[in-house]
């Protein structure tokens, strides 16, 4: 078997041109051995390229939910996962979406994960009346671009930004804040929201942006020279870890905070536990560590994914999938699922999954985390902390 596999990898390089024409369709027939109907749930996110890890986090979250449902076996159908890679880039977003739409067994999908790819993909989903539930695309404008079947189980950057800003201004009493973003669609959206709320709260703000890089020493020099009370970074954990490492290396003493993109144990690993100590993280997601339901999720995730630990957006993907499953019926069609999802009300591990008319989540809680002795600990929701 294995030999045939390896020979084929070489042979396929030769036969590629021909096979393109041959297997353009790729839609698989439904129906399974147990006699139950089989539905496919699609997933779209970056599964290769620089952001592959985030995509894999989401993909495994979806897989966990599907595997659990199949194992329980109490549903009138079985489920399958079909993943479509968009590299997290817009130019692959439309093709990746079209691949899911073309497969007639795909009943609904989780994703796309990145806002840029979402903008490229949603017209396709709208056209096909296919429900798409993003676990992570937080750019505020997405729900106002006229996409008909778009939902997200994560609060927008605007909501998180407001909560984070209030906590910095009122909870931590910062007078000057250095707001730094990673120049990504996500980062600029979040930093914009934070800055506008900070200004309302009467805090002096310095805005700055730096695209992902490895060397943050120059940026650290600049931040330290500005002597802010607090630094808020809008970006992802890998870069935030390096930034914190550089800041501490240069002796920065102020408050350091970041958002949901950095709310991951890998941040502590990247920064080093000593450097990460005391750093604040904000997230529009509940505490996945102490909740008993979340503990079950943690176990299920590890059982189904060869011991891998859930990462950023894994719980949201898991919730999105379960919410979709909760509206599935044996005779569901794409359109009926999309229609039923409007009124979904499902108790997820990150939040109560319930939507406003334009597809935003109703649960708008923003939680504050802090790294204490190398672990992320939840301090509470901003509404409680700021009062």
């Amino acid at each position, binding site marked *: 078997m294995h030999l045939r596999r390896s020979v084929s990898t070489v042979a396929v390089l030769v036969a590629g041109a021909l096979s393109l024409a041959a297997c353009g369709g790729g839609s698989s027939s439904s129906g399974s051995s147990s006699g139950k109907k089989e539905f496919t749930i699609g997933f779209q996110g970056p599964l290769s390229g*620089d952001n*592959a*890890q985030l995509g894999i986090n989401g993909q495994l979250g979806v897989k966990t939910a599907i595997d659990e449902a199949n194992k329980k076996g109490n549903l009138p159908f079985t489920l399958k996962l079909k993943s479509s890679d968009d590299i997290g880039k817009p130019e692959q977003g439309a093709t990746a979406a079209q691949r899911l739409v073309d497969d007639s067994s795909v009943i609904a999908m989780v994703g796309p994960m990145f806002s840029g790819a979402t903008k490229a993909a949603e017209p396709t989903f709208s056209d096909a009346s296919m429900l798409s539930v993003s676990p992570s695309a937080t750019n505020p404008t997405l729900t106002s671009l006229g996409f008909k079947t778009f939902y997200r189980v994560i609060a927008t950057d605007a909501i998180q930004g407001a909560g984070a800003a209030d906590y910095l201004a009122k909870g931590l009493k910062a007078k000057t804040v250095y707001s730094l973003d990673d*120049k990504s669609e996500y980062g600029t959206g979040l930093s914009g929201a934070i800055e506008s709320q900070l200004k309302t709260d009467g805090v002096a703000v310095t805005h*700055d*942006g*730096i*695209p992902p*890089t*490895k*060397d*943050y*020493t*120059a*940026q650290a*020099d*600049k931040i330290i*020279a*500005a002597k802010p009370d607090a630094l808020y970074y809008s970006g992802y954990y*890998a870069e935030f*870890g*390096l930034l914190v*490492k*550089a800041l*501490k*290396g*240069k*002796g920065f003493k102020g408050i350091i905070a970041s958002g949901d993109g950095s709310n991951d144990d*890998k941040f502590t*690993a*990247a*920064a*080093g*536990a*000593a*450097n990460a100590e005391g750093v604040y993280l904000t997230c529009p997601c509940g505490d996945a560590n102490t909740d008993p339901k979340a503990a079950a999720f943690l176990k299920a995730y590890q059982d189904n994914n060869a011991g891998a630990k859930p990462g950023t957006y894994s719980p949201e993907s898991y919730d999105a999938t379960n919410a979709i499953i909760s509206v599935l019926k044996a005779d569901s069609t794409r359109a009926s699922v999309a229609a039923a999802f409007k009124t979904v009300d499902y108790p997820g591990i990150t939040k109560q999954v319930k939507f406003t008319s334009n597809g935003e989540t109703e649960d708008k809680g923003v939680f504050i985390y802090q790294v204490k002795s190398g672990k992320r600990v939840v301090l509470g929701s901003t509404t409680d902390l700021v009062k």
Partner: protein
Amino acid sequence: MAFADQFWQLTVTGLVIGSVYAVIALGYTLVYGVLQLINFAHSEVFMFGAFGGVFATRALLPSGNISATESIGLVLLGLGIGALCGGLAAFALERTAYRPLRRRGAPRLAYLISAIGASLFASNLAGKEFGRDSVNIPKDLFDYNTQVFSVFGARVSKQDLVVFVVALALLLLLDRLVSGTRLGQGIRSVAQDSDTASLMGVNVERIIVMTFVLGGLLAGAGGFLYAMKFNASFTMGFIPGVKAFTAAVLGGIGNVRGAVLGGIVLGLVENYGQFFLGAQNLDVVAFLVLVLILLVRPSGLLGERLGRAA
């Protein structure tokens, strides 16, 4: 915030990163010296060295506090294993992506493209094997945040000092090696004229391999230095690779001392430059420096030719 207030801090940052650029730049310069080609995949050699060093130190990291001797030992270990991995990677690279082409006397464009292929292959293979997140040394090998001394008010941390001193030591070592040993003599003679060198009994093939390995050893050690500051990841090679190349061109590619000078100058210039243009444009500054240098003085600050300058 005036430039004058920040001048010394920028200088310290620039010198430290510049010394690392210099160490990597030597690999470009040495290979260019003997083969007259840019080793585009050198950045991945650097990346493999970084991973090797980081994983070695992670494996042997004591669980409790680290004593001074232990931290010195760990740094030396990381440097050694890093250099070893870099050397091995460079050797493998030369064997697979360059030698078959050289045997055939392929056109130079083919070398460049083959190196780009090798670079894609190596970095993504590393991503597959080592994960796609950046890898940190979990504990700081020396009290990271301790300030050793200050230069006109600019902080110099222990780590800055270690990186700078080790880089300097490596540079001196290489300079001695190229100017004072038989291997160095061989490298210089091949750089000057490989046909004549071959006629005079120098084993040119062996010298070429040794040059790659030498560059790889340095890049590997440099990779560990870089990873101590910035972690290791499968995409880490590209930017420092391009900058080290810039440094090599800046000093005069093929010229060992030029590469050192180029690295330091680039580190300083990009740090001064970003002060005015913003840190997000750090890389833009480096690229602009490269373009300007090539236009104004294509043969670099100290001129080309390995044979002449070393």
